């Protein structure tokens, strides 16, 4: 019998929420500042369970064609700037993003940090 975490208020399972998070991609980028508080406060997760939740969300976003980005700023020319330093393969990106988030204290993050946007909406700096 599985003991998949369920949303504390709305009752849906974590696997469903992971998909819901990625469903926003066609209309807007999804930020770590949404993912982390969603897992922590929506499902009451901490520690390894929260890290696993973050991993799953990022994996789902990447599987839908998203890439890691940061915002281009208020007057910047580009809305989203791709961050290729996290790697090119999904597993590589997930591990690097999660490692960085854990190293920064596994905080709730804010919208100035990392987001995931559809590839076609991101600008890739020339390397």
């Amino acid at each position, binding site marked *: 019998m599985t003991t998949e975490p369920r949303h504390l208020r709305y009752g849906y399972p974590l696997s469903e929420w992971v998909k819901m998070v990625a469903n926003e991609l066609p209309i*807007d980028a999804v930020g770590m*500042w*949404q*993912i982390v508080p*969603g897992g922590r406060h929506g499902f009451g997760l901490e520690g390894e369970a929260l890290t696993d939740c973050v991993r799953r969300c990022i994996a789902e976003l990447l599987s839908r064609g998203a890439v890691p980005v940061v915002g*281009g700023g208020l007057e910047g020319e580009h809305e989203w700037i791709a961050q290729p330093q996290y790697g090119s393969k999904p597993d590589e990106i997930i591990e690097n993003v999660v490692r960085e988030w854990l190293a920064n204290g596994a905080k709730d993050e804010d*919208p100035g940090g990392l987001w995931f946007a559809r590839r076609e909406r991101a600008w890739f700096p020339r390397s």
Partner: protein
Amino acid sequence: MSFIPSRTQELLRARYALDAARLELKSLRVILALRRFNPAQPRVPAGRPGGGRWTDGGSARIERISARRPRNGGTRVIRGQTYETTPAQEVRLDVSSARARALVREVQRHDPNWRPRPSIYEGVEGEILANESAASQAAARLRELNRPEPVRGPMEEILMPNGQHVGMQHRSTDERTRTVTIWEFDNLLEALTPGSQSVQPPVGYRGLWYRRPDGTVFGVRRSENHSITIDVIQNRHPDVRNGYKVHQK
């Protein structure tokens, strides 16, 4: 002695009389318009089709703008003229306009005949300054009346009135991603902005942040494919917490 034939003179007199009548008619229209003029009457917000026109404040006032440029900013119609705008200007236009409307309305609850001085302005920055001026005048008048700014309750009361999330859950996203009409979006901004102070957003954020008097923080951001969005940046309510977004339809 006139060398103009009398028939021509008659024609000229008739033309003069006609022109004078037209001029008088125009003057009467101006006088009538001035008598009806109420700068505080709700107007279609700047940047909307018909921006600056009077409205009854109902849903008719809402219809947002025109085509966007493919990248970066958009366009807004101000007093019949189309201007290109940066994302920052779009956010400042919407926020300043919402704050001015909220404060003017609050003054008029206590002093129905009060109105801000009409401004003559042009362009995007002119419209923003005019909004800020109207808001400042209204705030000053509220101080004279010993009335506080109309600061609404906690963010969750604004975004979840009567315990129900605003707008609609967008497609199959979670309940923290809402979509509202332009009219609802303007109302939310009017509720959120009074008493708020602008705070420095992080470098990458494509919008502006505001701290409300209760310490909660929200951002207003321009998105290329979803016009404008309110982001809840800092709030501790279990249902309306960091990560809550309200997109404008």
